[in-house]
C-alpha cells in the first residue's frame, strides 16, 4: 500500500517537474527579448528544481532507505534556491548596466537610450524601495537628460 502511494506520488511530481523544465526551455527559445527569456528560464529553473528534488527526497527515503542521500538532495535544493535567483538578478542587473534596454509588449523600448538603462542600474538602492520609486527615478533621469540637452544647445 505505502509502496503504491510512494510510487504514484513520485510519478505525478516527476511529470510536473518535467513539464516545468521543458516549458522553461521552450520559453527560453520562443520569448522575444532578453528580459522575458530571463523570466521564463529563471522561474522554471527554480520550480523544476524544487519539484524534482522533492521526488528524489521521497525516493531516497522510502525506496533507497538512505537518509544521507535525502540530506544531500536537500542541500542541492538549498543551494539551488539560493544561487539561481541570485544569478538571475545579477544577470538582469548587469544587462541593464551594460545598456540593454527592456521593451514593452509591442517591442518598443521603454527607455530612450542605453545610457539611461545604465543610469537606472547604477542608481542607489535607496531609490528603489518599490516599483513606483523606479518609475520616478526613470522620469527624473529623462528630466535630467532633457535639461542636459538644453544646456548643450545654449553653449
Amino acid at each position, binding site marked *: 500500500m505505502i509502496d503504491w502511494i510512494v510510487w504514484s506520488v513520485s510519478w505525478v511530481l516527476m*511529470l510536473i517537474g518535467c513539464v516545468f523544465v521543458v516549458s522553461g526551455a521552450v520559453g527560453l527559445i520562443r520569448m522575444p527579448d*532578453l528580459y522575458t527569456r530571463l523570466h521564463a*528560464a529563471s522561474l522554471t529553473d527554480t520550480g523544476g528544481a524544487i519539484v524534482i528534488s522533492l521526488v528524489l527526497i521521497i*525516493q531516497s527515503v522510502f525506496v*533507497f532507505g538512505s537518509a544521507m*542521500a535525502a540530506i544531500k538532495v536537500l542541500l542541492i535544493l538549498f543551494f539551488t534556491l539560493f544561487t539561481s535567483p541570485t*544569478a538571475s538578478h*545579477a544577470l538582469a542587473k548587469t*544587462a541593464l548596466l551594460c545598456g540593454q534596454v527592456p521593451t514593452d509588449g509591442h517591442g518598443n523600448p521603454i527607455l530612450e537610450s542605453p545610457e539611461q538603462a545604465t543610469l537606472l542600474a547604477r542608481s542607489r538602492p535607496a531609490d528603489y524601495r518599490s516599483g513606483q520609486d523606479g518609475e520616478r527615478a526613470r522620469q527624473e533621469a529623462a528630466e535630467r537628460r532633457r535639461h542636459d540637452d538644453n544646456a548643450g544647445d545654449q553653449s
Partner: protein
Amino acid sequence: MFATAVVALLITMALTLARALMGPTLFDRLLAVNSFGTKTVLLIAVYGFMTGRPDFLDIALVYALINFVGTIAVLKFFEYDDLGSGAYQEDDF
C-alpha cells in the same frame, strides 16, 4: 520514471544549448549557460538515482556551487572588465 525525467532533461538541455549558440547578445548566452548548468545538476542527481547509485549526488552538489560561482565571475568581469580590484567602487557611484 527516472528515465522519463532524464529524457525530459536532455531535451531541455538541447533547447538551452540552442539558445546559447544562437543568442543574439552575450547575456542570452550567459543565461542559457547558467540554465544549462542547473539542468546538469538535476540530470546528474536523477541519473544517479536511475542507476541505483545515489553517490552521484556529491558531484551534483559540487557542480551546483561551481556553476553559481562561474556565472557570477563572468558577470562581474563583463560589468567591470576586472575581477579583483576594488578601484571601481570609488568613481562609479
